[in-house]
């Protein structure tokens, strides 16, 4: 975009660079191939290796409490970490195709309901961290994207998170992961749409409407090279797995203890599907709790094993992951508290409805 730099600072090295890139690319592909092969081998040897360790090396019996706890941990912890490595990498590569700038372009001029649907979908794949919620919000408003559509985007992004998807797939099955994806999207789309219908633009802080972003194009990201995308994915792995692994291990450890020591059916009485208040209670407890999905899901899985209903467990997880205190505080800078209240209320009601629905269906 910037043609001011007319000096030919970097033309000479262009060919040398291209050759270097080509070499790098081959080496990268070979390394990736080796990594993938190793991954597959380890993944398939995990169960026998874990069994061998628990029952032969540690000499624990499969029917003892300690034995079943330890077996649970030794098998699940590496399995989940392995899944995280692979899937975060894949998601990272996919995300390198989506930038917030491009998302904004795609949403500009979209009608309300369709806009909410697209915003929800893009919220899942567009990378951004919660500290960017404010500039994103204002940037979207500037382009004339309706508040409701913007909120659909901002709800979908934390609600449907790739770590949660991996864990649900790894610890339950793909059906539960899919249910989570679809219901999370449904909540983001409807909540944003409902808030848009309420016509509460006046509860946006007034300074937001005064901001005039310079209309100049932002840093134009000209198409990334293939190797850049791979590095982007690897970077995502380093950043995300590097951050969540302690939570994952802690969550699985707690889950392992529940798995071994809590009697079957204990939780059915107050987290079961016949307890009408369990869903709202789970949401109310979940909202102020702030943990990432990585820590919650192993615990939720163990709870379900002991009689907690799927809807209740799902509602708890979504409340913890989707509505976080830090993000709300950040959003408070641009939204008056009335709108924050509506925001939390609408999302919470959505989660409660989903919870009841699943308790009823399953």
């Amino acid at each position, binding site marked *: 975009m910037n043609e001011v730099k007319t000096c030919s600072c970097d033309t000479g090295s262009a060919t040398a660079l291209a050759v270097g890139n080509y070499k790098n690319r081959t080496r990268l592909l070979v390394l990736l191939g080796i990594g993938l092969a190793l991954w597959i081998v380890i993944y398939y040897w995990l169960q026998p290796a874990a069994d061998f360790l628990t029952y032969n090396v540690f000499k624990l019996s499969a029917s003892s409490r300690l034995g079943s706890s330890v077996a649970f941990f030794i098998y699940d912890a590496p399995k989940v970490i392995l899944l995280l490595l692979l899937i975060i990498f894949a998601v990272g590569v996919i995300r390198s195709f989506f930038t*917030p*700038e491009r998302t904004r372009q795609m949403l500009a001029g979209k009608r309300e309901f369709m806009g909410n649907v697209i915003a929800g979908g893009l919220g899942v794949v567009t990378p951004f961290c919660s500290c960017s919620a404010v500039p994103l919000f204002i940037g979207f408003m500037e382009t004339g994207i309706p508040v409701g559509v913007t909120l659909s985007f901002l709800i979908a992004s934390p609600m449907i998170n790739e770590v949660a998807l991996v864990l649900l797939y790894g610890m339950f099955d793909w059906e539960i992961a899919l249910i989570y994806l679809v219901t999370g999207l449904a909540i983001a789309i409807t909540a944003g749409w409902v808030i848009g219908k309420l016509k509460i633009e006046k509860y946006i802080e007034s300074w937001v409407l005064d901001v005039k972003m310079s209309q100049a194009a932002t840093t134009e990201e000209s198409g990334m090279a293939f190797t850049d995308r791979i590095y982007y994915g690897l970077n995502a792995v380093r950043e995300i797995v590097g951050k969540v692994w302690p939570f994952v291990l802690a969550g699985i450890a707690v889950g392992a203890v529940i798995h071994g020591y809590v009697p079957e059916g204990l939780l059915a009485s107050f987290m079961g599907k016949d307890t009408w208040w369990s869903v709202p209670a789970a949401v109310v407890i979940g909202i102020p709790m702030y943990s990432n999905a990585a820590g919650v899901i192993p615990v939720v899985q163990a709870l379900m094993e002991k009689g907690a209903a799927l809807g209740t467990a799902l509602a708890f997880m979504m409340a913890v992951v989707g509505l976080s205190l830090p993000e709300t505080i950040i959003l408070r800078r641009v939204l008056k508290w009335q709108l924050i209240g509506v925001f939390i209320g609408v999302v919470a009601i959505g989660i409660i409805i989903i919870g009841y629905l699943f308790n009823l269906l399953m």
Partner: protein
Amino acid sequence: MNIKILGTGCAKCHSLEKTVKEVVSNLKLDAQVEAVNDMKEILTYNILTTPGLVINEKVVLSGHVPNKREVERILMNAQSSEDKC
């Protein structure tokens, strides 16, 4: 060279600031590094995601924390275009 780090105090912004300062002192660049925390000022640079890295009033990067090598490359480029042009 004038370097600005745009960010409202999140962990990523701090880590970008740290990296940039390290690189500047390692390469012995003649540069002022300044952290911009004010949201309104940040928004005048028209970025959607923080942290942002601005060199001589031009946004060179936003939304992710680059590693040291990448920062080195960016700063060296900025330096050489400043020298030659």
